[in-house]
């Protein structure tokens, strides 16, 4: 705020000299409008955009009015020559026009020579169209508009270009002549704002075309299986590298920060066949698992049985006969306990055995034959 009074007054003096050429060219400011300062507005405290109408009523306007009044007093006192006389003759209208023109020129000077550059931006200054310097973040001063212009470029912001979408098919050919449906995105930002502004006609479209080209080249060097499987990271790296090389060759001033493959799938038309492969893989794996389970089980079982036999055999060797008989009787005991028994006294007797029918009343039939045999046995 402190330094402003000196500044405009100074430029005002400058203006008095060059009134001819620069005054009317102020009328061109609308076309200068694309040049950023007025709309995006210096957020500095001494001026706010849209205060071209003096009735703005802002606090700052008061300050400006004072300032103009002061400089007008000085102007009126000093430059009595031609203008003073004209104004003096028709005080109301003449002074009003001078006022408007003065205020307009002042505002225009302020807007076009003070630039506040955001931390993520760089200001590329051109002097009569020729590149002169690049401004860093912060408030910077340049010569007013037709002489020097500033174009702000966002260099930190990482921009994103999406190529192919997950919802629709973007088909590309792989090296083994298969078709892949791919969606990917490219992240980039500006490294050299001046190259970015001055070297390419259409930087964003260029980046997109280069991305497509690099992706196609990378895919044509891999197989489908690699592309849908573990080869993705490799492809991403290759695309990034390739893009950077090409964009450097174009002197684009762009850095590719990364390439991300969001989707790499077989096309929908053959997707079922691919699913069948993974189903087959599952099936094969489960076959193998079952076999492993069987093997494990069988091994344990055989070892168990062998060990059991070994134990018994050890005992058997100590007293073979007794063990053998004991085992025989014990087994037979258990067997005969649980079966229906019929003892037939031998030759000549052919027992009638309706085997199928005896089953239901088995319990009832159990006794008589047993008794029979018992008597027969006893009778012997």
């Amino acid at each position, binding site marked *: 705020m402190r330094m402003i009074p000196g500044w405009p007054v100074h430029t005002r003096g400058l203006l008095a000299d060059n009134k001819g050429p620069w005054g009317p060219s102020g009328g061109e400011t609308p076309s200068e409008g694309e040049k950023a300062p007025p709309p995006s507005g210096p957020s500095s405290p001494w001026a706010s955009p849209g205060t071209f109408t003096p009735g703005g009523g802002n606090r700052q306007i008061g300050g400006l009015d004072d300032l103009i009044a002061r400089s007008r007093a000085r102007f009126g006192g000093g430059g009595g020559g031609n203008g003073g006389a004209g104004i003096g003759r028709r005080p109301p209208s003449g002074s009003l026009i001078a006022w408007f023109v003065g205020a307009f020129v002042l505002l225009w000077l302020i807007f076009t020579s003070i630039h506040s550059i955001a931390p993520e931006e760089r200001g590329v200054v051109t002097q009569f*169209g020729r*590149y002169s310097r690049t401004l860093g973040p912060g408030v910077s001063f340049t010569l007013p508009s037709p002489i020097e212009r500033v174009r702000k470029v966002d260099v930190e912001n990482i921009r994103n270009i999406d190529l192919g979408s997950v919802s629709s098919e973007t088909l590309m050919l792989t090296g083994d002549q298969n078709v892949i449906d791919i969606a990917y995105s490219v992240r980039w930002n500006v490294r050299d704002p001046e190259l970015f502004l001055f070297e390419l006609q259409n930087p964003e479209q260029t980046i997109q075309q280069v991305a497509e080209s690099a992706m196609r080249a990378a895919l044509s060097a891999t197989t489908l299986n690699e592309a849908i499987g573990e080869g993705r990271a490799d492809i991403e790296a290759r695309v990034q590298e390739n893009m950077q090389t090409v964009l450097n*060759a174009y002197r684009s001033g762009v850095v590719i920060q990364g390439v991300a493959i969001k989707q790499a799938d077989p096309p929908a038309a053959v997707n079922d066949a691919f699913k069948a492969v993974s189903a087959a893989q599952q099936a094969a794996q489960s076959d193998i698992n079952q076999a492993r389970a069987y093997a494990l089980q069988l091994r344990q079982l055989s070892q168990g049985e062998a060990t059991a036999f070994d134990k018994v055999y050890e005992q058997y060797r100590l007293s073979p006969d007794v063990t053998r008989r004991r085992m025989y009787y014990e087994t037979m005991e258990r067997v005969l306990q649980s079966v*229906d028994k019929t*003892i037939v006294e031998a030759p000549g007797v052919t027992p009638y055995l309706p085997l199928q029918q005896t089953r239901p009343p088995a319990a009832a039939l159990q006794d008589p034959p047993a008794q029979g045999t018992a008597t027969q046995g006893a009778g012997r």
Partner: protein
Amino acid sequence: MSFATRRPIATIVVALLLLFTLLSSVSIVPETRQALIVRFGKPDRIYNRYKPGQPIGAPGAGLAFRIPFVDDIVWIDKRVRDVDMDRQMVLSTDQLRLEVDAFARYRVVDPLRMYVSARSEDRVGEALRPILGSELRNELGRRPFADLLSPERQGAMENIRSRLDKIARQYGVQIIDVRIKRADLPDGSPLQSAYDRMRTAREQEARSIRAEGAKQAQIIRAEADAQAAQTYAASFGKDPVFYDFYRAMQAYQRTFVDGGKDRPTNLILSPQNEFLRQFTNGGGR
């Protein structure tokens, strides 16, 4: 001054005229453009002409002066521009078709030549577009299909670039780069047959995976069987006679006791049975 006060309107007209003349005698040449000054239709001089390797900000851009109403300024882009080719059908030597989409990047390096041969850089682009297409078709058409997929490797793109560059030089234009953006199978039968091939290849793969799995499973089982047999033989082989007896006892147990629980067995015994030996001979030996 006295004239100005007496004839204000004339003064304003004269001032405006002066101003207009002054303004139209000075132009700002930006970094992105080359300015060709044409005097009565005859090219006279060039401001901010492209020179290879010149850094940005080097003398060139800046103010350009001209004589009003005599000199005309023709603006010509200094930046790298692109020509996006129409899709092109390429027939490979093995009679397969491929749809190719390519782009070329160029820069006007000789504004004067460009101006006399094409008038504007857009028209240069229009002129180059079909040439790029035919160069691409000619170059790629000399290759088998498999090579078309990665023409970068065989230097095809560099060939196209250099040949296109030769033609472009006639327009004062330098071709910086030619690249294939897309290479696709045409819709319809070529794409369909590619799908069929992919599908059958997958089916084959699926079957072989299944078969491989079955094979491995069988081997695992057989190995286990063999190992079990070995374990059994090592153990039971110590006394085959006793094993015979031992196993028989186990078999009886399992058959009649464990296996006969829900379906009792009928057993008809003869008194001569070994089990009934004591039973019949009354305890005598």
